[in-house]
């Protein structure tokens, strides 16, 4: 995926390898150390994540951002059929520990 490099922007665009683009709040994406590093180092990465998974990842970013300070958070719904692939993506993005305090 590629991160747009207009630094002052509040938003980040994630592009999947099949051309889907997701515009997200920058603050919401920093939950992923991987993306955080991409943004900081001003590098561009492209990764084999298709729009279907990236959509879920983007949904998770928003879900995390919305709930980052709440105590009792309902679980996000994960479709069973993309569970394993999403797990790989989550691992790549470093979303394995709850990093509500990293932001």
């Amino acid at each position, binding site marked *: 995926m590629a991160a747009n490099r207009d630094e002052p922007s509040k938003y980040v665009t994630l592009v999947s390898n099949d051309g889907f683009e997701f515009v997200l709040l920058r603050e919401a994406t920093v939950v992923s150390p991987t993306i955080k590093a991409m943004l900081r180092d001003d590098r561009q990465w492209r990764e084999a994540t298709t729009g279907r998974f990236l959509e879920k990842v983007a949904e998770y970013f928003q879900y995390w951002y919305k709930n980052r300070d*709440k105590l009792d958070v309902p679980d996000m719904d994960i479709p069973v059929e993309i569970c394993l692939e999403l797990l*790989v993506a989550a691992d790549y*993005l470093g979303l394995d520990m709850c990093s509500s305090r990293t932001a």
Partner: protein
Amino acid sequence: MSRQNRQGRSSIRGPQSALTDFLASHNISANQIRLDADARRRAAQNNPGQVDPNQQDDGSSALPAAPTDTPDEIPAGPAQAGPSRTRRSAAETNTHDDKRKKEQQKVIDKIKASKKFQKRKRNADDSEDEDDLARAIFQQRSAPLPGQIENCANCGTRFTVTPYSRSAPDGGGLLCTPCGKKLNQDDDLPKKKKKPVPAGGPIGRRRQLQSNILDGTYQPGSKSLTTLCIETLAKNIDLAGDLGDLPWPVVDKIARKLSKHRLLNTATLDLFLQPIAEEVYIYDGAKLSADDYIRVFQTVPNLKKLKIRNAIHFKDEVMDYLISRHIDLEEFYLHGANLLASSKWHEFLNAKGQSLRSLRVYWTDKHFGNDILASLPTTCPSLNRLKVSHNQEVSGDGVKELAKLKHLRHLSLDLREHVHSDIYVSVLSEIGHALETFALSRVPDLDNTVLDAIHNKCRSLEKLRITDSELMTDEGFVRLFNGWENKGLLFLDLQKCRQLESSKPRENPDNIGLCSNGFRALMAHSGKSLRHLNIHACRHISAEAFEEVFGFEQGKIYPELQKMEISFCEEVTDFIVGCIFRSCPNLRELNVFGCMKVRDVRVPRGRILVGVPNAVGMMIEGEDDDD
């Protein structure tokens, strides 16, 4: 009408209640009472203020018709007038109509004034007209009584009203049984489609939250995506054929999650056996058979680290197979393998002991004893971690032999047999200088000599645990920590080192256990480096000692401390808890079970306080930011 009544009396015979039986034995007929009441009501309906002559024929209504002042006995609308009305002349009907309207108005006024009406008006404040509401209540009350004949509002057939008769959906009259059933069926259909309410609700969720806190898995904010995925996967594990090439930590997490739900069985075990792997961690082997364990060794030829909990079927034949293979384990963790004979342990250690660096054996009763510990120095020369936990066989003779394990770095013992302090002292004097972990659980007879030996010998200790000692004194702990040439500890567990004297529980003349001075000395020595401190039930530590140690104003800061357990330290107050949170900036969890002086603490954001004795529960999660 009287004939109807009499017919009813002879033909309706249902099961009788105890009251009916009782009344019958006193020559009172319940049925008669009911019929009388019915007749009175009907008379009131048909002919307010005038007694029906038929009733007197019946000989049952000694009382005159009840006046229509109670809302229960109200004149009915035209539909309920009943057949007797037709017999009357038109003129009579007109006067009756006027009268009835007046009566009706009276009752409606009364309904409007009633409490019930006021309440309902408050509830249904959506612009409903007052008159309409009162009329609705009126209609409801004046519905035909059970036992009466009525025309069905839907199909028009005549039928007997029962308590189960349904009212028509539009509110106009009652329905006969077939029509009512039809309506019931129609109603049921959308009900079934309704989504089931998720279990729990607010109370269930709160319970789950508390459970997570006690498990130590609680996190404020949302769960990580990996956790969410793993939970979904664990719920649908039977659909997974292969985990693919997921990285090891993720696979391990899945294994833990599955074991927690007790889902690890013959079928799901295959997901975790990757031929190229070097480690297999089975967190719950209760459902696995001996063949499954053999399969582990067949599929994973490069196995180096093996951990099996609840390894009930790890039997002799499994050990035989392991010995026969070219597998040289470096780490071996076995929990609950009671079917493994002592001779097999010897065989295994003789054959495979050379490569073994870590041996941890939990929950065995008979077959892991002194002779095995005695053989360790020769069979496992490079052993550097040994843990024997919940063991009923090992005694002092076995522990004595551990002094010969020159490479030992980590030693944890939780034995049931009595071992004298002198034996520990001799072991420490031999291998104490290199030990990084020294953990002795449940040692009531351990005394100050062991503390002195630790002070004199140990130089690289990071983790120390001595629990349940009833002989060690405050002075002993002071001697241990004052001027100890060991660097600061990372983990310290001194729980339940306290005086146990039930006749004089408050007095502690000999300062047995960890008391104020020992606590000051330990925090002075290791406070800066400690990550985990457990002084559970060290109840003679005074409030002054706590306030002094955690004196934020005096610049006492403990940056490393993450988890602290001070339950049953009786002197802990709200103020001390506040001090602890201020002086330990990275403290995540503080346990204060049984600290009855803790009442109402403001917990900083993101910290967890467990065990507050109040009705809210066992935890307060901070609402306000401390800084």
